[in-house]
């Protein structure tokens, strides 16, 4: 039962957004965030229902009604602390989680109107916490109550993406001495190289990471595990008691169609890495350039395809997404598709590239596509697209971006055969504890699941932290016995 007056408004309090025409030309954040009145108004739409379906809908089980209760009553510090205790990266999740298929997808209010804007409220408390660090920290300390049961244990985290950051934070809270190893020069993994600035500002990622550092977590950049040290060395010469592997799914897939080697063709990862990690949009002040055509075609229907398309649009290319299934089947978040469309990205559904065409100098001039139609569902449950014979036609373009998915990074499985992987090179773990086949080594995130979402990776990081804590505690009692 709520001890505040329920707001019966059927619609979600709208999120203020940057104008679509304007934002199509810049890299600034699209969604601007609630102010205090909007946040309280939205929070009071929560019924505080008994069965709390939203909490089960969340991969890291944020006590959603509890944090919203604080917001509804105007105590944002406690709202922040209640959320942050369960979720290591609320400012990030509030922006990039697919709430519509998770917490908000099962919200009781959603049965007769819009669900409560849980994501928007999460973002609100996280940003409030950044703006009021002293009050946020004090509230967090009240809630936290440090325990030191893992004191004296050293844990290595391989990869500083969402799963690694979450696992590191959880273990540090329990007193473990945690070091995160990152191969790149910047921490954050996909949060820094993959997701664009306009969706997730990089200074915000830096602030979430700084908070993790205040828990005592150490970060070492420019260390490629599997090359500089392998996992076995981490547990011997480097003196770690346990290792978590969160190396992600970064290796791009290709279409394997004619002309894929033409100039003007790149993967979404290359485009996004150049722009997000290396700041190529500020070339030549930054040394890394990025090729941008006049007309760009992006192939794919996931969030990465949306990010790539919205990036190429902002860099000045007239951009079209081609996808072999229909709009309903697109795996991208509804909000991302809407944002892309508002900004002027065009969509060509049920269209599949069959050949890339180039000029004599080896530069791309167009893509031959074939129309598709949907037949009976395949093993993924989605209706299988089949080509319509004789429907081939050419779309002119001088830039083509491949965004059809990624494989897991091969460096760990190449160098540590003791860690068993499946035929897709994904690490095999115990689903409860995230333990791999190598004692003391745990894994989670995209390296285990294949390319998925930030929040699922964080959920795995949290489970792995519990698995590691149990492993270390057992080890300690064995040593005493």
């Amino acid at each position, binding site marked *: 039962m709520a001890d505040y007056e329920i707001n019966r408004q059927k619609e979600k309090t709208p999120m203020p957004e940057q104008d679509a025409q304007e934002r199509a030309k810049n890299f600034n954040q699209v969604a601007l965030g609630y102010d205090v009145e909007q946040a309280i108004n939205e929070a009071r739409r929560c019924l505080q229902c008994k069965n709390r379906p939203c909490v089960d809908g969340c991969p890291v089980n944020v006590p959603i009604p509890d944090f919203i209760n604080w917001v509804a009553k105007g105590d944002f510090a406690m709202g922040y602390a209640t959320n942050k205790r369960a979720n290591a990266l609320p400012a990030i999740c509030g922006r990039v989680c697919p709430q519509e298929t998770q917490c908000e997808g099962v919200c009781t209010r959603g049965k007769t109107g819009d669900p409560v804007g849980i994501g928007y409220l999460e973002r609100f408390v996280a940003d409030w916490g950044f703006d009021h660090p002293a009050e946020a920290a004090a509230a967090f300390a009240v809630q936290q109550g440090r325990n030191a049961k893992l004191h004296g244990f050293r844990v290595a985290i391989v990869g500083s993406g969402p799963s690694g950051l979450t696992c590191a934070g959880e273990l540090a809270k329990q007193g473990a001495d945690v070091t995160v190893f990152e*191969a*790149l*020069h910047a921490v954050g993994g996909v949060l820094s*190289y993959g997701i664009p600035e306009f969706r997730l500002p990089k200074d915000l990622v830096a602030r979430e990471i700084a908070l993790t550092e205040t828990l005592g977590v150490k970060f070492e*950049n*420019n*260390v*490629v595990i599997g*090359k*500089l040290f392998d996992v076995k060395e981490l547990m011997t010469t480097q003196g770690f008691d346990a290792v978590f592997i969160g190396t992600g799914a*970064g*290796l*791009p897939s*290709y279409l394997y169609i004619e002309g*894929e*080697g*033409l*100039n*003007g063709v*790149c*993967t979404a*990862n*290359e485009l996004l*890495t*150049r722009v997000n*990690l*290396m*700041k190529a949009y500020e*070339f*030549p*002040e*930054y*040394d*890394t*350039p990025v*090729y941008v055509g006049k007309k760009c075609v992006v192939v794919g229907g996931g969030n990465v395809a949306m990010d790539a398309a919205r990036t190429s649009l902002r860099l000045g290319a007239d951009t079209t997404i081609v996808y072999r299934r229909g709009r309903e089947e697109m795996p991208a978040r509804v909000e991302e598709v809407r944002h892309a469309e508002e900004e002027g990205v065009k969509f060509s559904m049920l269209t599949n590239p069959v050949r890339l065409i180039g000029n004599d100098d*080896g530069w791309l001039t167009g893509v031959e596509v074939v129309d598709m139609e949907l037949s009976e569902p395949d093993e993924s449950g989605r209706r299988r697209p089949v080509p319509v014979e004789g429907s081939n036609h050419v779309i002119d373009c001088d830039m083509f971006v*491949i965004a059809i998915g990624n494989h897991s*990074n*091969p*460096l760990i499985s*190449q160098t540590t055969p003791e860690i068993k992987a499946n035929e897709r090179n994904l690490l095999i773990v115990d689903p409860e504890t995230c333990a791999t086949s190598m004692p003391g080594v745990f894994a989670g995130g995209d390296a285990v699941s294949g390319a998925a979402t930030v929040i699922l990776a964080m959920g795995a990081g949290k489970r792995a932290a519990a698995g590691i804590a149990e492993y270390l505690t057992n080890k300690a009692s064995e040593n005493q016995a």
Partner: protein
Amino acid sequence: MYLIEQVEQLNPEVTRMVVRAPQIARKIKPGQFIMLRIDETGERIPLTMSDIDVLSGTVTIVFQVVGATTMRLAQKKPGEYLTDFVGPLGNPTELDNVGKACVIGGGLGVAIAYPLVKWLHSQGSDVDVIVGFRNKDLVILEKELSLSASELIVTTDDGSYGVQGLVTQPLLEKLEEGVKYDLVLAIGPIPMMKAVAKVTKEAGIKTVVSMNPLMIDGTGMCGGCRVKVGDKYMHTCVDGPDFDGHQVDFDDALRRERMYRGFERQSAEHTREVIEASGGNCHCASMASAVRKEA
């Protein structure tokens, strides 16, 4: 931060730099590379290891001034620092159990060929070395190579030093003389590696080439460094940089190498202006104005 210990000009275009990186020095093997970023606004560039000193904890890199980053790198002095220096990356060249080898280097590729020659020699292999340059002024590492090579042949395009012509000519002569190589390693410009691979394919000799494509992250993520090998795309950073010379699609690689050339010129021009405005000299031999100023 990574301390630059030594900087030495090997020829008007090529610089050797010794960087303090003790952990990498202990691990890196011939054929592997590092990636560096000079500073916050810098790009990540891959450079193959040219030498190491495990005791003093240093890694030696050799680079040619071709663009903005190498131009800025050539300005660095001993005692200064590089922001990022990461490695070892890529796979070591497989050099075990080679009886007789021929290592062929072209231009800057000679700097990468050098540790391979040294390693093969120390393992007891018999190594012939053929290195090619445009002219006499550009010849590098001749003395160092001669210490490990069974026979060292230097070629120049204009005949100003050694044998006039391309590296494939002495190779063909060796094969005609009946020399049997277990392995040919070719490192240099793509047209050179392509030409060597053509000769050795006809002769049926196992040939490994070291690819040096555009690369952004260098850790198996962006796909920028893809090379077509047989009918598959391979990533130079995690699958290479060595590939079967008879399988690599050199024409594809040559075309992809050109994709960013316009940007490289623009970026180099920008950097040259910045360097010259601050009273420096960009060492950029490919830019006529800079060369003239030097003269």
